[in-house]
């Protein structure tokens, strides 16, 4: 179903329906994430992907106009590139551990310590919160600063109005 939505996004030229489809895609992604036990991530994806970014895309659409100009000229080169990359990636999975393999490297390194010690060390039951705010506090500080910087960038880009009327050589 997600693949169908993505293909529809790729084919559709009316940008409004693309934006709505992207919102649907985000909700589907959130559902998949719940199935994969990532409840925190699913919650974020549902509120961010389907809520905020849809509103943002619609706002930008309002400023930019809604129709994609022309159909694709030569889709074969990008398609070939995509096919080659898919093949390479699938070949790369041959060496990866199987789905839900408890002895995969991802499950044996630091994570058992987080799971066993987090409640005792931080008193926080949700391990995701504990790791986010405490064990990896530096990472989260960095992420917060990135969000801050992006906000500052948007302000810098959109605050000043263009000065075409005065001084623009035209």
């Amino acid at each position: 179903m997600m693949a169908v939505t993505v293909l529809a996004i790729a084919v559709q030229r009316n940008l409004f329906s693309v934006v709505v489809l992207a919102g649907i895609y985000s909700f589907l992604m959130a559902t998949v994430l719940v199935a994969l036990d990532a409840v925190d991530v699913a919650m974020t994806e549902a509120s961010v992907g389907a809520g905020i970014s849809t509103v943002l895309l619609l706002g930008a659409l309002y400023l930019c106009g809604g129709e994609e100009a022309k159909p694709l000229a030569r889709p074969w080169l990008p398609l070939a590139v995509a096919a080659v990359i898919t093949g390479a990636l699938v070949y790369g999975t041959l060496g990866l551990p199987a789905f839900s393999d408890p002895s995969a490297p991802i499950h044996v390194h630091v994570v058992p310590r987080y799971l066993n010690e987090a409640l005792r060390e931080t008193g926080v039951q949700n391990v995701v919160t504990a790791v986010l705010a405490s064990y990896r506090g530096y990472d989260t500080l960095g992420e917060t600063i990135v969000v801050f910087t992006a906000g500052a960038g948007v302000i810098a880009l959109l605050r000043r109005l263009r000065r075409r009327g005065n001084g623009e050589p035209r």
Partner: protein
Amino acid sequence: MRRFLVLRVVGKLLIPFMLLFALYVQFHGDFGPGGGFQAGVIGAAVIVFYALIFGLPAARRLVPDAVVESMVGLGVLLYAGVGVAGLVFGGNYLDYFVLGADPVSGQHRGIFWVEAGVAITVSGVMLKIFYMFAGRRRALEDQ
């Protein structure tokens, strides 16, 4: 926007509960899914919802630009301040163990303030971005 009576009434009914949900997500993040990032986004979404129903000027009166912009900086400063507080109390930067009477309560306090900082910054940035995009056309027309 005066015509959408149903929308306005339902919006007025729902918005307090949405804000409450944002706060619940923020403060219940220790025990269930949730935390600063989600709460910030939901809180910003409430104001966006308000702006969509009642118009952007009303939302800007409710949450002025100056408040939003100071929220953006304040959250980062709060987060960094927690780190500095760890230094002041004799630990390392972002070391929460020294913030409370015993390590566990110190951790709890540190996580609480850090999450608060994240939520403030995230909701401030989201709201500011929305204001910028939504107010752009109006500003151009005014010129």
